[in-house]
């Protein structure tokens, strides 16, 4: 099976309006629309993690709205300090496996799982390497290019993507480092899409040198431990090792520190917070990390991300001002 990421997209909402109120986030609105209008036809199943309130409800909307694509819910543990969370998560994974087996008629085996984990870990390392290497070639790896490399990972078989990315990195390394005159920023949030938005950064002399986007580097920050038990247990331990994500309970509001560290490592001038419209988990984090960044001397601009809305004029002006300020 090839897992694909469903991150919504630019859609005109018609059918989804009968399922979601206007204040559900644009990603879920678009996902629902694509599910209902047949765009997602061909998927064998959809796995929905219930990590926010909207996603909780999405499990039920999907179940009744898109009955042709079976819905597999997964409820991740949030009290990761509790040792019992590991066994609990393993049982959730096992439920997912049971449904997947029913849907596909195929069974998982331990050797294949361990091999896959290795591929994913290698892929993580490749993506981190790409992110670093890209910073020496910001003339080629524009914000849009960077995002394309990141997002394409959701649509390739992992081993295939794992083979492509090192090629990109190697090719970049053969070129002389480019001394970029532009300002350097880190992106934070869920996603920074569509390309029009990223183009505005470039138009205003900003380049992306790192990110804390759920769709991009948050995916690759945490490897699955090599030891610790069978494959499923190690996957559960990986969940417990994740950090700095608005969707995973953690005390101390650590994102400000994490972002400041990202800025330091990548010599960034500031942070753009891409606040997904109606995304409450992000909205709770944003005031804290913005304040922490400011206190650390890093300027921060918050822009609202809403790919259902085509108007970017206001954002353009704000990004321009931010760029000038940097």
């Amino acid at each position, binding site marked *: 099976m090839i897992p694909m990421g469903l991150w919504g997209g630019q859609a005109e909402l018609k059918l989804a309006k009968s399922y979601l*109120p206007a204040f559900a986030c644009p990603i879920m609105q678009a996902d629902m629309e694509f599910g209902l209008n047949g765009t997602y036809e061909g998927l064998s199943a959809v796995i929905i993690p219930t990590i*926010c309130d909207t996603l*909780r409800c999405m499990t039920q909307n999907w179940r009744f709205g898109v009955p042709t694509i079976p819905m597999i819910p997964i*409820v991740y543990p949030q009290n990761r300090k509790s040792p019992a969370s590991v066994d609990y998560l393993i049982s959730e994974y096992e*439920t997912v496996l049971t449904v997947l087996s029913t849907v596909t008629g195929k069974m998982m085996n331990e050797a294949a799982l361990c091999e896959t984990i290795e591929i994913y870990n290698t892929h993580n390392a490749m993506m981190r390497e790409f992110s670093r290497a890209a910073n020496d070639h910001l003339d080629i790896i524009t914000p849009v290019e960077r995002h394309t490399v990141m997002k394409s990972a959701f649509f390739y078989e992992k081993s295939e993507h794992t083979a492509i990315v090192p090629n990109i990195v190697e090719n970049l390394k053969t070129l002389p480092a480019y001394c970029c005159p532009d300002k350097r920023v880190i992106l934070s949030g869920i996603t920074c899409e569509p390309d029009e938005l990223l183009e505005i950064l470039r138009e205003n002399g900003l380049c992306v040198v790192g990110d804390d986007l759920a769709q991009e580097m948050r995916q690759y920050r945490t490897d699955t431990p090599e030891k610790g038990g069978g494959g499923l247990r190690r996957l559960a331990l990986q969940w417990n090792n994740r950090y700095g994500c608005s969707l995973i309970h953690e005390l101390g509001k650590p994102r400000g520190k994490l972002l400041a560290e990202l800025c330091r490592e990548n010599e960034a001038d500031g942070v753009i917070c891409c606040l997904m419209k109606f995304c409450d988990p992000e909205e709770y984090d944003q005031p804290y990390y913005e304040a922490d960044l400011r206190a650390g001397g890093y300027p921060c601009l918050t822009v609202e991300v809403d790919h259902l809305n085509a108007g970017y004029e206001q954002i353009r002006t704000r990004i321009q001002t931010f760029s000038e300020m940097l």
Partner: protein
Amino acid sequence: MRETQADQAKISTPGEQAAASAPKPRRPKPKSMVLLGEQTEALFENARLAKERGEKVGWSASIFPQEIPETLGLNILYPENHSAGIAVRHQADPFLQKCEGALGYSNDLCAYAKVNLVYASVLNEESEMELPDGGRLVKPDFLLLTNNICNQLTKWYENLARELDIPVFFIDTCYNPSDYVTESRVRYVRAQIDQLIRDLCEFTGKSWDDERFKEIMEISRRNSYLWERSYNLMDCKPAPLSGFELFNYMSAMVCNRGKESSTAVLEQLNAEIEEHIREGTSTFPTEEAFRVSWDGIACWPYLSHNLRTLKKYGVNMVASSYGKAWAINYEDLDGMARAYCFASTNGDNATTMIARRLEALKKFGCEGTIYHVNRSCKVMDCQMMEVQRQLSAQAGVPFASFNGDQADYRNYSEAQFETRIQGLVEIMKQNKEAKADD
């Protein structure tokens, strides 16, 4: 002939505010409300005194297993209930402004959280504002958190913990997409309960007493029974109460579920309802032409407007999801894990939700549903359209929705509410006439 009585005495608050804010009653306040007012006073006063004695006081999520702190003899206050009180007294505005202004939060967030985050920052002397109740929600030393209502609470409490630099004692209750609680959830939640009891004892210096726990569990069970019973008595036709009045008693369950004072309040309430039934009286101020159920949290800032409008059309709200909200019955800690895991919206996958509502519509003889599209609360709204569609089809009962908010007064239109109710009444009338013709 039934007596009808004036309504305005009874729409005061979700409980804690009852004593302070109710407009002048035209009829004497029922004794149950007097007891409730005293209970509320005692809750805040005891917390204040405990603070003065140097004891640790906590804030808690509303569907946390409060039998635990009660067994330990801790003083706990409930921000959701408190924010509702501020909203119902029309005092939320400066909080909302400050939250979205100086504190920099998005206006998309739950208004209970917004009010409380500002309140906390004032207590912490990070913001300046005169607190309308003089700060009687005293500053906490720790937080008790469960996510069985929603995920927003987890984030809200993360922020409180950072703001106030205090620990969170957390039981992750894991949403149930299935119609039952899986055994793996019970094991995980139970392990957390055991750990939480140890950690809380260590932090507060209290010790756990199994015998005391059994007593509290018994009180809690009795209170849950009395609560549900008072709701169930609304199945009488016409109903003995104006349904909104029952909202007033919520604090007996939210804040004092494990206390004998709630038993007294609820026994008195049951007795008063029974008396109405015996005497053939009702507190619903006009003839009960239609019976409806209410879906969602009350629209606290506009409760009086809701009631006035419904009264105008003779619509009595005789059923709401609050009826079973605290039907949390169990006999031991494993049972507690299972019960709290399935409580509130945690057990509200669409099929369970529809089954619960279908049962209520039938039991209470409802002819329609009013569905509050609560701008604050994604968890209660984002699957509601499908639920209402299926429910309406299965029950053959129409529904009307209106936009509102449980605490943010800006998200409501009196005109829209009235129009929607008119529309609903029209359909209910036609249904009634069709039935009569049959």
